[in-house]
C-alpha cells in the first residue's frame, strides 16, 4: 500500500514540479498513449454504451408503459447514462482493454530488465513510463464517458423511435430536460476518479511484477480485479456523496 501511495506522490511530483525542472512529459508519448488508450478504445466503448442504452430503454418501456408512464423512457435513459452507467461501463471497458495492457506492458518491461536499464541510465521510470499513461488516461477517461453517454442515448432513441414508433423531437427534449448539468458533471467527475484509480493500479502492479511470463499473467489478472473492486467501491461512495 505504501508503494502505491509513493507512486501517486511521484506522479504528482513529475506532473507539477517536473515541467519547472525542464523534465516535463514528452508530448509525443502522451499523444501516442492517448491514441492507444482512448482513440482505439472508442469503438468498444461506443458499442457497449449503445447496447446498454438499448437494453435500458427496452426494459424501461415495458414496465413504465404498464404503469402509464411510457413517456418517461428518455428521462430514465438520460439520467441513468449520465449519472451511473456511462462512467461505470466506460471504466469497465478501460480496465479490460487498456488497464490490463498497461500492466502487461510494464510487467514485461520489468522482467526483461528494461525498467532496470532506465534506472541505470538515470531515467526515472515513473516520469518516462507512467506519467504519459496517466495524462492520457485522465484525458481519455472522461472523454470516452461523454461518447458513451451519447451512444447510450442513441441506443435509447433506437428503441423509442424504431420499436415504439415515437417522435425524435420529444425524445431529445425530454432527455435534455430531465438530466441536469449536475448529472453530467458528477458523471464526469466519477469517470476522472475511476481513470485515476485504473491507471495508478495498473502501473503499480505492472512495475512490481516478479517472475517471468507467469508473473506477468498473474499481475495482469490481479490488476484487473483490483481496479474493478476499486471502481465499484468508489462508485458506491461517490453516488452516496452526490445523491
Amino acid at each position, binding site marked *: 500500500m505504501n508503494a502505491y501511495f509513493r507512486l501517486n506522490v511521484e506522479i504528482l511530483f513529475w506532473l507539477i514540479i517536473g515541467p519547472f525542472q525542464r523534465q516535463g512529459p514528452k508530448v509525443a508519448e502522451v499523444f501516442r498513449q492517448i491514441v492507444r488508450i482512448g482513440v482505439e478504445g472508442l469503438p468498444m466503448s461506443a458499442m457497449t454504451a449503445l447496447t446498454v442504452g438499448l437494453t435500458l430503454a427496452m426494459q424501461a418501456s415495458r414496465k413504465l408503459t404498464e404503469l402509464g408512464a411510457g413517456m418517461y423512457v428518455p428521462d430514465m435513459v438520460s439520467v441513468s447514462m449520465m449519472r451511473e452507467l456511462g462512467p461505470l461501463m466506460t471504466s469497465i471497458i478501460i480496465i479490460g482493454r487498456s488497464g490490463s495492457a498497461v500492466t502487461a*506492458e510494464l510487467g*514485461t518491461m520489468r522482467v526483461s*530488465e*528494461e525498467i532496470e*536499464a*532506465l*534506472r*541505470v*541510465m*538515470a531515467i526515472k521510470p515513473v516520469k518516462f513510463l507512467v506519467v504519459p499513461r496517466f495524462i492520457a488516461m485522465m484525458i481519455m477517461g472522461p472523454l470516452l464517458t461523454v461518447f458513451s453517454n451519447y451512444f447510450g442515448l442513441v441506443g435509447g432513441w433506437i428503441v423509442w423511435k424504431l420499436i415504439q414508433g415515437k417522435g425524435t423531437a420529444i425524445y431529445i427534449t425530454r432527455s435534455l430536460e430531465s438530466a441536469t448539468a449536475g448529472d453530467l458533471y458528477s458523471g464526469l467527475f466519477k469517470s476522472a476518479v475511476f481513470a485515476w484509480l485504473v491507471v495508478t493500479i495498473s502501473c503499480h502492479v505492472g512495475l512490481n511484477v516478479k517472475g517471468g511470463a507467469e508473473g506477468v499473467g498473474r499481475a495482469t489478472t490481479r490488476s484487473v480485479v483490483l481496479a474493478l473492486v476499486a471502481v465499484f467501491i468508489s462508485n458506491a461512495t461517490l453516488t452516496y456523496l452526490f445523491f
Partner: protein
Amino acid sequence: MTLDSDSSKSALHDRESKDVVIEVKDLVVRFGDRTILDGINFKVHKGDTMIIMGGSGCGKSTLLRQLIGSTVPDSGEIRLYGFDITRMSEKELDPLRKRFGMLFQSGALLQSLTIGENISLPLLENSKVDPAIVDLIVKMKLELVGLTGFENLKPAEISGGMKKRVALARALALDPDLLFSDEPTAGLDPVMTAVVDKLTCDLTRKLGMTAVVVTHDMTSAFRIGTYMIMLGSGPHQGKIIAEGTPEEIKKNPDPMLRQFINGEADGPIPLKLSQDDYFKHLLGSG
C-alpha cells in the same frame, strides 16, 4: 628474476599508480539463507579492463548489479569515484549513473522504441545536446558497432547478436568514462566478438575509459583484460579464488582456475549446484 615477472610487476605498479575508480570492501550479499557474495574486496583503477569470471551461478551478475547500484548489499562498501553508493539514495546516485554506461546481458533495449530512439534516449534525457546533433551521434554510434542504417528498425526486427551491439552503442552514447558489460560477446559470431573486443581495447587504452566486464569467454577475457578476478563456486561460493593480471592468471596453478580457463569437464569445480544428497532426494526423506 625473469623478464616476464619483471614486466608483470611493472604492469601492476603502473596500474596501482592510477586513480581508483571503484573500490569494493568486504561485500556480502545473501539471498535468503544462501550467501552469494562473501567478503569481496578489489579495486578498479582508471583505464583498467577488469574481468570478472567464474562458473554459472557464482554471483558474477549479482556483483555487477551491486556495482551499478541496482541492489543494496547486506554489508560492505562499494566506492564509485570515492562515493559509497551503498548508502546513497536513487536521487544521489543519478549524477554518478550519468558517468557510466551499462551493457545488460539481454541487451534490455526498450521494445517500443526504434533502435535510433534507444540510442538517443540517454542523450535526450541526460544531456543538453541539440536534437540535430543527437541524430548524428546515433549514426556515429551505430557505425561504431557495424549497424549503420538500422536506426529505424524495432528491436524485435533484429537478431540477438545485433541487439547486443545496439545495447553497446546505447551504453556508449554519452561517451562514459566507465563501462559495465555483462557477457558482452555472448551470442556474437567470432568476427563480431573480435570487433567488440577491439572497440573495448580502443576505448580503454586510447581514450582512458575504464571497463568492468563479466564474461565466460576466455579468449575475449585474455584479449581485453588488464586485471582479472575469478569468483569461486561450491565450498568457495562468493569468494575471490584468484586475481591478477592476465599473465599472472595464466601462470596461477590453482586447479579450479586451470579447469575453468581450459574448459575441462573434470576437475574441482562442482557441477552440481544442489546442496541435497542425490540418493536422499531420489528416495524421499522417509
